[in-house]
């Protein structure tokens, strides 16, 4: 279902495409809400992730987008087993990993790494850069010789554009962009197959942001790493990702290749997201009609019945309140969960990227 059409451009980017590296089925994470002090009763649950299924293809960049609280970061943590899922299955290279523990989980972690959002709080201020980047080796018991580990770490520093001579410096001696490079080097240390980047550039200034984005793209090209890229900046996501999954209240509501998604979003929520992005081009900005969604995201403790977006959707009708729309292929190849997908005319009016399809 998630295996949507690949465009020539994305298909040519990596060999071995079309084969899933990770398969996620019906992934659910509910955080229990309890009341009472000694005898804690379960009174409800925050449905952070509620039945998410997708594949991550080898060598691709999959984007996860959505508003805060839609469950994208929780999904990332579930994929890496930093958190245990309530139910559902995660297969990595064909192997079920949702019930792994101990040594086997530790071995698995060599293949999956994470880059965090905040380069200020994700690096231990008391450790030198060399120790931080070498930490994965210490945990996995690799490159135990002192000289050998230093050499490997310095090679990594060179790969991500840090001066290897700064091996003994502390994180506070580096700027934000350089710190994020340290985070990237640490994630690369064990030569993982999959890297999950959770908002890797949102704490950085625009000029620095471009440096880190270029680095990630170049590393992916050179090393063939599969990337799951979480961000809320839709122009960054378009630039980075081959395929994009849009999440709303714990569910995937639309999934398509970048080109298709930005050219003709089908789910009204995706359309509203794209219409809301400020465009750094006054002419384009003047042309489009900004679609403003009223209100806030409903609480994930008690999400709306049936289609979860119906409370804010301008196209909602009776069926949207009673029947949950299935995630299925819509016109243009997008996979979307919607009873009344957007038509091309509606997209053209709201979405500044629509004309990219004709051009």
């Amino acid at each position, binding site marked *: 279902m998630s295996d949507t059409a690949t465009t020539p*451009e994305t298909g040519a980017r990596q060999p071995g495409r079309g084969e899933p590296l990770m398969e996620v089925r019906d992934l659910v994470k509910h955080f229990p809400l309890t009341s009472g002090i000694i005898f804690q009763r379960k009174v409800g649950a925050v449905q952070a992730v509620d039945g998410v299924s997708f594949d991550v293809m080898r060598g691709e960049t999959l984007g996860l987008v959505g*508003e*805060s609280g839609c469950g994208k970061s929780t999904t990332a943590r579930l994929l890496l087993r930093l958190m245990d899922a309530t139910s559902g299955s995660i297969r990595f290279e064909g192997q079920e990993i949702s019930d792994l523990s101990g040594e086997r989980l530790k071995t698995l972690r060599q293949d999956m790494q994470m880059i965090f959002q905040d380069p*200020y709080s994700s690096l231990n201020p008391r450790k030198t850069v060399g120790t931080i980047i070498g930490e994965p080796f210490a945990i996995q018991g690799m490159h135990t010789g002192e000289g050998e580990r230093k050499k490997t770490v310095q090679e990594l520093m060179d790969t991500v554009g*840090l*001066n290897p001579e*700064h091996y003994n*410096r502390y994180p*506070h*001696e*580096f*700027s*934000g*962009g*350089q710190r994020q490079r340290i985070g990237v080097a640490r994630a690369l240390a064990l030569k993982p197959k999959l890297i999950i980047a959770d908002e890797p550039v949102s*704490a*950085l*200034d*625009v*000029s*620095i*942001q*471009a*440096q880190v*984005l*270029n680095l990630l*793209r170049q590393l992916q090209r050179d090393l063939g790493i599969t990337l799951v890229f979480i961000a*809320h900046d*839709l*122009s*960054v996501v*378009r*630039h980075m990702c081959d395929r994009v999954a849009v999440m709303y209240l714990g569910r995937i509501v639309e999934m398509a290749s*970048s*080109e298709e998604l*930005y050219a003709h979003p089908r789910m009204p929520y995706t359309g*509203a*997201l794209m*219409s*809301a*992005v*400020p*465009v*750094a*081009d*006054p*002419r*384009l*900005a003047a042309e489009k009609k*900004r*679609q*403003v*969604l*009223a*209100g*806030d995201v409903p609480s994930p403790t008690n999400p709306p019945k049936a289609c979860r977006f119906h409370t804010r959707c301008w196209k909602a009708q009776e069926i949207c309140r009673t029947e949950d729309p299935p995630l299925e292929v819509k016109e243009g190849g997008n996979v979307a969960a919607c009873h009344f997908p957007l038509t091309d005319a509606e997209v053209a009016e709201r979405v*500044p*990227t629509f*004309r*990219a399809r004709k051009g």
Partner: protein
Amino acid sequence: MALLEIDNLSVHFETDDGIVKAVDGISYTVDRGQTLGIVGESGSGKSVSSLTVMGLSRSRNARISGSIKFDGKELLTSSDDELRKIRGNDIAMIFQDPLSSLHPFYKVGAQIVEAVRTHRNVSKQQAYDRAIEMLGLVGIPEPRKRAESYPHEFSGGMRQRAMIAMALANDPKLLIADEPTTALDVTVQAQILELIERLQSEFDTAVVVITHDLGVVAEMADEIAVMYAGRIVEHAKTDTIFAGPEHPYTWGLLSSIPKLDSPRDEELVPIAGRPPSLINLPGGCSFHPRCPYVKPAHMKTDPTLEPVPGSDGHKVACLLAHETRQKLWRELREGTAPVEARADVMQDAPPPEAIEALEETEGRPAPTTVEEQPS
């Protein structure tokens, strides 16, 4: 007469490490009903300059000079009492982080009442009615009920709207919005931008919006001032900034953001290095260590903000010749890399020291780190 006239404003802070030149001689004007966007990286002085307009940077170690005229009245020499009458009344400010700008112990309604009663001689009931009216105006559902809520019971977007309600409660003539949407989701951001635009057209308020997001200013601002290292390096109408920018720093900003309508495989062109320390500004043009088009003379001469010939209201501080800049931008817009554009247009090899300087800033961790998180 312009509503706000800032002339040669400098704000320097004396610290143990030296003098921080946060704002170093900037001038701009804002008319009634007009929106000015101030863009720049963190540490470029964009926030300090507007805090100074509000009289909020008056600390013991601050050295402020120049002139800020609001409605013809000089603010820099005004007493604290006089400023207090203007602040929150004629000039209001929206801050980036609504959670830390609202008092956690007081109900939202009561905080707006306080803002109203500080400046107007009205009864508590009248002020409370005004608070509810404002909450309704900014689109908070059931304003009468929500006025009795505490800030932590509001979502991020609602808090930001409550702060806008408070800022606008006294019908200010000038609204300063410091990164008004940076902490918000795009959907909420669209709501807030729409709200500011609507209120502006209704009340003819002048708006100064400070941001690092070029998309936000492209949609909101009439004019844009680009700041770098405490100075305005380029100032022009919004369309001109995006269609015919003249400063290499503006070019750098524009080519480092991914565009929604360009091919996806296009490479971003980041600006090399990072913003200088405001204590030790590089000599000459302060952008020269990061500028791909630097010439030896640029390291000695400090450029001033001068009008661009043939472009109305367009000013730039750059030592390159106007024709050279136009040719360079034409090449860059076609997607030429800066180094090649330089080779094509300037027909000289880059001076070796310049390249060394560039590499040095790239790899060198500065002892005094300028905060890089979007401020």
